[in-house]
């Protein structure tokens, strides 16, 4: 183009869905292809392996009598290894992994300086944040699935899959049992969405990814601590972690979807609140890194 010519026609953007999907694919490749994240998933997958091995060797649940009844049932039915492993990972390991993935989402790019280059490509900020959120959610789902799938495989190998004895003592066929455990996996995964939103918000505040990661994990821990203090019982129902263990509902004869719905509603509220905060922050912030 010479000076005398009219400016070139502006480049034609691809249809929105195509552009979104292309960026999302790139983001997923980045998140799931990253060695650190793969190690995290492998570490999570190790939990049911270790738990299953210990229980298989001792043939006696070290946790029986202490933990919830389904842990004691693992040796009798491999399906329960999924539930027991999730139960073990939910208080700390899963929040840790979620904290790392979501805290890193924006802050990692900001810290590395790659954020400014994405934005001048240009990737619209709302699109970038949404794609980052989706990728963090996908990673959260992968984390839960890493525990669940390994638990299922290891449990089946060590103990076999049998009809499931529910909390009340009645038994359902193995097919329905698998469905119920799938429900538990889905509920646990959805229970982590609020924490993903919190992590994403922290991630927009800083260009030090470790800070955002730590803050996210701390939120989960503080929530758990508050949840254990009867003095603040008034705020318990709204706490991020309060409903996490309601997944046991799936092991009742009559699953109370009201209880599960309440847990998911609380997560939705946290997602809405911190998702909005993250958006408000990220779309207006000066990128100085």
């Amino acid at each position, binding site marked *: 183009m010479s000076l005398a010519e009219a400016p070139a026609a502006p*480049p034609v953007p691809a249809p929105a869905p195509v552009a979104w999907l292309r960026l999302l694919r790139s983001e997923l490749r980045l998140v799931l292809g990253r060695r650190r994240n793969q190690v995290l998933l492998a570490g999570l997958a190790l939990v049911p392996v270790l738990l299953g091995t210990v229980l298989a060797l001792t043939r006696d649940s070290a946790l029986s009598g202490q933990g919830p009844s389904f842990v004691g049932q693992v040796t009798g039915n491999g399906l329960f290894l999924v539930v027991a492993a999730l139960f073990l990972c939910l208080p700390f390991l899963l929040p840790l992994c979620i904290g790392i993935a979501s805290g890193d989402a924006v802050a990692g790019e900001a810290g590395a300086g790659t954020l400014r280059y994405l934005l001048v490509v240009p990737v619209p900020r709302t699109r970038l944040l949404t794609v980052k959120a989706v990728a963090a959610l996908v990673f959260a789902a992968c984390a839960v699935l890493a525990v669940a799938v390994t638990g299922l495989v290891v449990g089946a190998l060590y103990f076999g899959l049998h009809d499931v004895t529910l909390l009340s003592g009645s038994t359902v066929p193995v097919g329905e049992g698998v469905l119920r455990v799938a429900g538990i996996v889905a509920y646990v995964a959805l229970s982590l969405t609020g924490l993903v939103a919190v992590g994403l918000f922290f991630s927009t505040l800083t260009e030090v990814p470790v800070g955002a990661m730590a803050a996210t994990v701390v939120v989960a821990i503080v929530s758990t601590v508050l949840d254990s203090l009867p003095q603040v019982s008034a705020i318990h129902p709204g706490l991020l972690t309060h409903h996490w263990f309601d997944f046991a509902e799936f092991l009742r004869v009559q699953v109370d979807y009201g209880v599960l719905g309440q847990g998911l509603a609380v997560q939705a509220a946290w997602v809405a609140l911190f998702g909005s905060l993250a958006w408000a922050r990220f779309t207006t912030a*000066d990128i100085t890194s």
Partner: protein
Amino acid sequence: MTSPAEVPGTGGADDGLAVRTAGLTKRFRSGQVAVDGVDLRVPRGAVYGFLGPNGSGKTTTIRMLLGLARPTGGRAWLLGAAMPDEATRVLPRVGALVEGPAFHPYLSGRANLARLDAGDATADPRTARRRAEAALDRVGLGAAAAKPYRQYSLGMKQRLGLAAALLQPRDLLVLDEPTNGLDPQGTREVRHLVRELADAGTTVLVSSHLLAEIEQVCTHVGIMSRGHLLLQGERAALTERGAARLVVTTRATQVTAAVEVLAGVGLTEVAPPDGIPHPARVDGPVRITAALGPTPPEKVSAALVHAGIDLLGLEVVRPNLEQLFVELTGEGFDVAR
């Protein structure tokens, strides 16, 4: 804030300027004013040297131009489009290198370019690979395309940054310190690349704190100091403005006589190099400088010869941008040096 006197109702009308700002200001929350009422005018097709010492506000200005930071005052247009409102529309036509290269360390150069290309809604995925290879070849990184970024030398990183700016055909390139970390050979290559792009019609806004590196390729120059744009315009016109100096080389034994002659023809600031010539080199050549003023150089040479002084050399030195900058601000240009 719009300044209505300067901005016609058409707002972002295409006025032949590739980059334009009006009263662009950035005041940080700390109260520090990093950029203060800057009115950039970069004509289309120009190679605009955006010069100034480290910390003079160049990068902050560039960040505002590209929509990374919001101005606290004034407005900016790129290729006639208001920033940051029309960023999505105009930025695909703008390639940028901002404050050094930055890529994912564990991805290869090629994968890093693919990552950026995936974010560009106007980029054709079918040609992504080919465009990335072309850009890598253009900056001489073709052989290192598969290496992870963290293994790149500083110069290679800088080149990858340039490759990213060249992934698509661009109407405007904004290159912030593109020669940082490059060796003299690399610096020459960047200059060559800039000239080549400019010849193909791309407007280039190139910032640097090292005047000499960039000066030669610029058609236009803007000089920043402490957040202010001290002056801008065509480079040739700007350097003409400065005062030319005369450098006379003669024998050491004749310095005193020569100084008298130079003062006699009306030159000022006549300065022999270091007063008394060194005894060991009592007959060696010595350089005397003086402000030329309106005196024609040929009159000076004639006067010197007439006075029987051995004229070993006579040179008229026009100030370069660096000297011009020192004249304007009374301070050194490169604070880092």
